[in-house]
């Protein structure tokens, strides 16, 4: 992948400014249709999901009071995992987007909601709603791209550090909620600043995160295990809660990776969004996201982020309406000859992971390696890794010359 502006076959080169404006008008019309029909049935939907989540969580935690018995452990852990997934994805994420603010119910509102997540809702709303959704896939602006610890684009210079990025990505997936909290805090950038020079805002946010983590951990790893002591289930309940958190983390990480990481998703240059019109913003959202195809249950489990394209176009529409919007959006892609990136969950997860691995290696390395040349390629990688910047520049220059020669020969 390389930013859309640098591509030889820029997929939006054929769009005239009038086309882009028209796309904006047509998408506004699709949005308006939903606004006009939004009502009691939608309100009933989110209340139902919240009701199911709370009852499922209560029941699962009740079962886990006797988690020393393996069947209880399995049932309780499975139930709690599903409850936590619902709570984070279809409920928390979407309420915090303001998707349900229109109901004017103070209990289901972006300004009052708090979720079962290490990062406090306020901080997440800033980094996610404001930064990620405004600057979607703009290299250097959208920190969701690789969360600042990964190489996500061929244009980013390769460094041996990135060899470990599949491992980072896996660890990040397991403890995703803490990864998100660290990222909302811009922890990496702030830790580099000497302690006494860090901003008050950062310190206050850090206190907020620590308090939240303490509360969440107390609940899952102390209170509920302690309530299970009468049946001798302290440790099994603790393990069950830990497992449910990891399952939820792995799931949400996978869904989010599928949203912006699979092949076919475009990235953009910083300069390209200066003075961006509404239509241009829409086009960037169209090409910067990817969908996941699947069953209704899968859509709900992803918080309807399986309709990532529709979500990025209309982040404040109720999530239960994305499915209805999708065919209209897709028709618009076809009309303007744009690529609507979608695929099954396994396909998209594979595609995203493949990209993580590919970019952990120097540009072109994975594609050029086969069984026959593996020894030479590995030797080259060893040199690139251990040789320092000078050696890397030399080998890269050599590669470029060879590729150019091959292109001329062809």
């Amino acid at each position, binding site marked *: 992948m390389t930013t859309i502006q640098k591509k030889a076959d820029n997929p939006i080169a054929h769009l005239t400014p009038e086309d882009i404006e028209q796309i904006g008008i047509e998408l506004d019309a699709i949005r308006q249709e939903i606004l006009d029909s939004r009502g009691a049935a939608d309100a*009933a939907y989110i209340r139902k999901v919240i009701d199911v989540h709370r009852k499922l969580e209560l029941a699962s935690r009740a079962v886990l009071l006797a988690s020393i018995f393996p069947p209880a452990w399995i049932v309780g852990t499975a139930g709690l995992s599903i409850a936590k997934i619902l709570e984070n994805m279809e409920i928390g994420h979407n309420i915090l987007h303001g998707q349900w603010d229109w109901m004017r*119910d103070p209990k289901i509102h972006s300004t009052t909601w708090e979720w079962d997540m290490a990062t406090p809702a306020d901080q997440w709303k800033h980094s996610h*709603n404001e930064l990620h959704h405004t600057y979607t896939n703009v290299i250097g602006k959208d920190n969701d791209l690789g969360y600042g610890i990964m190489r996500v684009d061929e244009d980013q210079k390769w460094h041996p550090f990135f060899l470990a990025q599949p491992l980072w990505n896996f660890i990040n997936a397991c403890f995703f909620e803490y990864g998100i909290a660290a990222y909302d805090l811009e922890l990496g950038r702030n830790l580099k600043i000497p302690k006494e020079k860090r901003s008050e805002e950062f310190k206050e946010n850090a206190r907020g995160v620590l308090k939240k983590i303490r509360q969440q951990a107390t609940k899952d790893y102390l209170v509920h295990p302690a309530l299970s002591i009468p049946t001798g289930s302290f440790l099994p309940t603790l393990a069950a809660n830990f497992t449910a958190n990891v399952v939820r983390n792995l799931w949400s990480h996978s869904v989010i990776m599928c949203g912006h990481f699979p092949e076919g998703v475009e990235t953009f240059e910083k300069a390209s969004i200066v003075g961006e019109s509404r239509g241009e913003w829409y086009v960037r959202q169209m090409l910067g996201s990817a969908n996941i195809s699947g069953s209704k249950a899968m859509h709900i489990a992803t918080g309807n982020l399986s309709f990532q394209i529709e979500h990025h176009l209309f982040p404040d529409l109720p999530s239960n309406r994305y499915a209805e919007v999708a065919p209209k959006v897709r028709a618009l892609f076809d009309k303007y000859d744009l690529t609507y990136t979608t695929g099954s969950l396994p396909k998209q997860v594979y595609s995203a992971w493949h990209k993580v691995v590919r970019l952990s290696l120097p540009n072109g390395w994975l594609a050029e390696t086969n069984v026959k040349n593996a020894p030479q390629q590995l030797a080259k990688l060893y040199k690139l890794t251990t040789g320092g910047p000078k050696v890397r520049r030399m080998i890269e220059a050599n590669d470029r010359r060879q590729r150019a020669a091959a292109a001329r020969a062809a």
Partner: protein
Amino acid sequence: MTSTPTSTLMLRDRLVRVVEAATTPLLPADYLDLFAPLRSGADLRGRIEEVHPETADAATIVIKPGADWAGHVPGQYVRVGIDVDGIRQWRAYSLTHGPRRDGRISITVKAVPDGLVSTHLVREARAGTIVHLEQAAGEFVLPPAGGKFLFVTAGSGVTPVIGMLRNLFPSTDSGVLRLPRSADFDIVVVHIAPTEPDSIFLSDLKALAEAGAVHLVPRYDDVHGVLDVAELSDLVPDLADRATFACGPGGLLDALADHHEAAGIELFTEQFRASFKVAGDGGTVAFNDGTEVVADGATPILDVAEAAGVLMPSGCRMGVCFGCVLPLREGVVRDLRNGEITIANDGDNVVIQTCISAAAGPCHIDH
């Protein structure tokens, strides 16, 4: 009753903290509400138990209030929050009955044209629906010692008056009861309505008049012409001896206020329907610190306020992130993306996105 020992209180506090630690980030109440929304300690709610049609366009709604309902005095009103088309709407209604023995409360609602909530309550409300309540409020109540009173009621303005009268003179199968506690009340009711059949509770009023409990002076616009408040002294010769309680539309109440002030007569008024708000173009935007800025109808309130030096929360500035939302305490705003109008009456506190909302009338932002 013995006082609870401090140690028990401390134990209870500790227990509450443990339960809270077990439910964070939700509250224990969030789970209890699933099963017992009307319990003591919950946010005040009620359940609609019955809906009785009164006339073609009015109905009495009987509500079982939550356990924390503190009771009311006849003539007071209650603010009711009900979801219409999925949107929570709050309106104030008079409490028609005096305190009932069964603990229920009732409101009588007339479906006004274009009245979103009143139409919903009269035509769509069903038994079993949970509504949101505030405690009864209102100073529009009779002194218990009695005296000489005039009630001026117009249209559904009769409802708080009916509440008081039913409490004073309970109506039974064998007729209207004349209780000793009501002996010292001398009441005249001037009831105004466009036409006779349109007048809700008219039968109640007539029954009370026939039993001699009140003196009824009906005034129907189609028969008697539209009432001029100056005529009141003809309709009620001892007007000056009576304290007047009036409930009706703003125009009538304003006219009465002027008339009674000039004549030096005591007046108590009650008005529910907030003065009708019309979407215009621009308006003054007021903030809690007293700042007032003049906003045109095409500039987001966020920009206008910032230009005037108000420190505003903000985010994407394009309607996406909900980082700029603030409660509109009262006023009218227009969504600049699609022209949609949002109206907030005093106390509604509708949360709006200031970055895409422009003033469409005078606004007060709670910030």
